[in-house]
């Protein structure tokens, strides 16, 4: 019974991945034509996740929220239900940009409660880890560009507001150009970090089973990803620009830097 619930949960995660894909396309291409399909798969995913929870509840004879995996699973399911209700009642589709990736990642983690067999080939294991590191570093590079552009935006905005024209600052790009640069670098940063986190989670799952959950350094990387998601969402939905966007970008970058530092000595603490 428990095995089939894991199966349905993993299928739901795959279906939610379509939502993640929609979010990435919406952020990078600024187009929403994939939304209808992503919403369809998301609905099916919610049903399957519901089935998984019911099956597990029947097997255990209680609501399966007693451990980390169970609670994150139910939490993802409730978020998905709330989203579907809000979308049905208020047609508030813009929240999908943040909620689709969130539900996907939570479900992905929830689906990892049963360890799988270790790597069949050590080369695949190492390559997997390298891809994870490259993706995360590319994401941080993009976030650095976002933060620098945001600061330039702030300076240029101040100059235009103050109506003074110090010659050095006149060389800064126009606000519109900086805004485009911020959107693009933020989008790529989010995509790279999301893929990096997915690769990292899967690597840790195969390598370490369930023992990585609760590690502070890994939790910090989830916090960084969450802040990045929040930044993307606030920009897409509330149009955060100027001071707010610059501060948020600096916070995300700072958090990213901390994650990086925390990960520098992570492997020996995970693998004794």
């Amino acid at each position, binding site marked *: 019974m428990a095995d089939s619930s894991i199966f349905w949960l993993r299928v739901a995660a795959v279906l939610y991945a379509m939502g993640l894909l929609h979010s990435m396309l919406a952020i990078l291409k600024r187009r929403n034509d994939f939304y209808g399909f992503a919403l369809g798969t998301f609905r099916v995913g919610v049903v399957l996740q519901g089935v998984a929870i019911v099956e597990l509840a029947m097997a255990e004879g209680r609501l399966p929220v007693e451990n980390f995996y169970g609670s994150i699973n139910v939490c993802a399911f409730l978020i998905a239900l709330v989203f579907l209700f809000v979308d049905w009642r208020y047609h508030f589709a813009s929240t999908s940009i943040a909620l689709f990736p969130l539900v996907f990642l939570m479900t992905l983690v929830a689906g990892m409660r049963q360890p799988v067999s270790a790597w069949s080939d050590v080369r695949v294991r190492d390559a997997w880890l390298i891809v994870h590191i490259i993706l995360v570093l590319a994401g941080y590079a993009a976030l650095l560009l976002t933060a620098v552009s945001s600061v330039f935006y702030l300076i240029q905005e101040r100059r235009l507001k103050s109506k003074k*024209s110090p010659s050095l600052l006149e060389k800064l790009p126009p606000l519109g150009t900086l805004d485009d640069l911020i959107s693009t670098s933020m989008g790529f940063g989010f995509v790279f970090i999301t893929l990096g986190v997915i690769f990292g989670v899967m690597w840790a799952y195969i390598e370490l089973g369930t023992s990585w959950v609760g590690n502070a350094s890994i939790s910090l990387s989830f916090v960084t990803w969450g802040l990045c998601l929040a930044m993307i969402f606030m920009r897409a939905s509330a149009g955060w*620009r100027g001071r707010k966007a610059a501060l948020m970008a600096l916070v995300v970058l700072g958090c990213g830097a901390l994650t990086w530092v925390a990960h520098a000595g992570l492997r020996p603490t995970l693998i004794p």
Partner: protein
Amino acid sequence: MKLLITGLSHHTAPVEVREKLAFEEQALPGALDRLCRRPGMVEGMILSTCNRVEVAVTAEESSDAANSVDEFLAEARSVEPSWVSPYLYHYNGPDAIRHLFRVASSLDSMIVGEPQILGQLKSAYMLAKEHGSVSGFLDLVMTRAFNVAKRVRTETEIGSSAVSVSYAAVELARDIFGSLSGKRVLLVGAGKMAESAARHLRRAGVSDILVTNRTRSRADALAEEFHGRVVEYDEMAVTLPDVDIVIASSGAPHFILTKDLMQGVITRRRHRPMFLIDIAVPRNVEPSVNTLDGIFVYDIDDLDRVVKSNLTARVNVAEQAEEIITEEVERMMLRLKTREVTPTIVSLQEQLELVRMSEIERVRAKLGVLTPQQQEAIEAMTRGIINKIAHAPITEMRRKANDPEGIQLIHTIRKLFRLGEG
């Protein structure tokens, strides 16, 4: 041959004098004709703008070109020579070339760096060229002047900043939006300055212009002129979130765009930047709107300050441009001297060769039949003599090509050897 420029400009003459001396466009061909027919004139060109009237001529060395051009101006514009002469300036040789380069580069303009003067100079040159009154020396100097102007524009930032209120507004819009393509402009009211700013924005790539005005007929006329559309005055607030640039010039006695109104507008725009140009007096936009994130408000005084600051910057850049002009004048003078030396050397060698050949012919009959060896010896001897005679003047001309007295030396040698006018 000498180059002379005679004229008056905003530096030397008030507008009432300039307008009397200005040539109408259709009168220019006839005037050029009369100018070039004057004794000693070789080439001529007339530049007539609202800020200057200048006559550039090349004339024979012996002629009194300065007086002749003064007389021409007085006759052509039917004014007394004594009335106009205090306002006139004359530039000769290198000074004329420098002046021409400065005018073309807009260093002598009322607004330093303005681009119109180069176009006006090109038009004057084209007309003179079509008319056949520019073909040699003046042609060479003019062509160089256009290249110098291009160099000044490329290597300095003389023309990069806006020096009119309308253009300053466009430049600020570019600082905010980058490309103006696809941006939407709303004209609130229909003042002349707003119209001018809208025209500049349209040229800069703005695609969509909306007009709103209390008087519908005026709004219709403006919308037609800019291929835009009219927005009912009462519906303005609804339209604002879709507008990127607002040019307010309405005669309303109170603020039309208040902070409360614009707070709602910028939220609905999700904080995408908005540029409000308020050129109305009394102002149409509440000044505190500028404190809202994403909205930039510039009133007429702000734009004026931008213009003044840019003008000061241009004066500083002009010093850099003057250095380029000095370098280019020196280069031009060198080129002109080299241009005069080479034909003189060739003429001298041809002249001496002619003398040698005619002398050999003259004595051949007296010497009777000569053996080939004897003929060869005579050829070698006479050739050696003329080479020795020519050596000193040719060396001296080449040596002095870069010196100011080089031209004088060329004239002396031409006169001594009777080489004629080259």
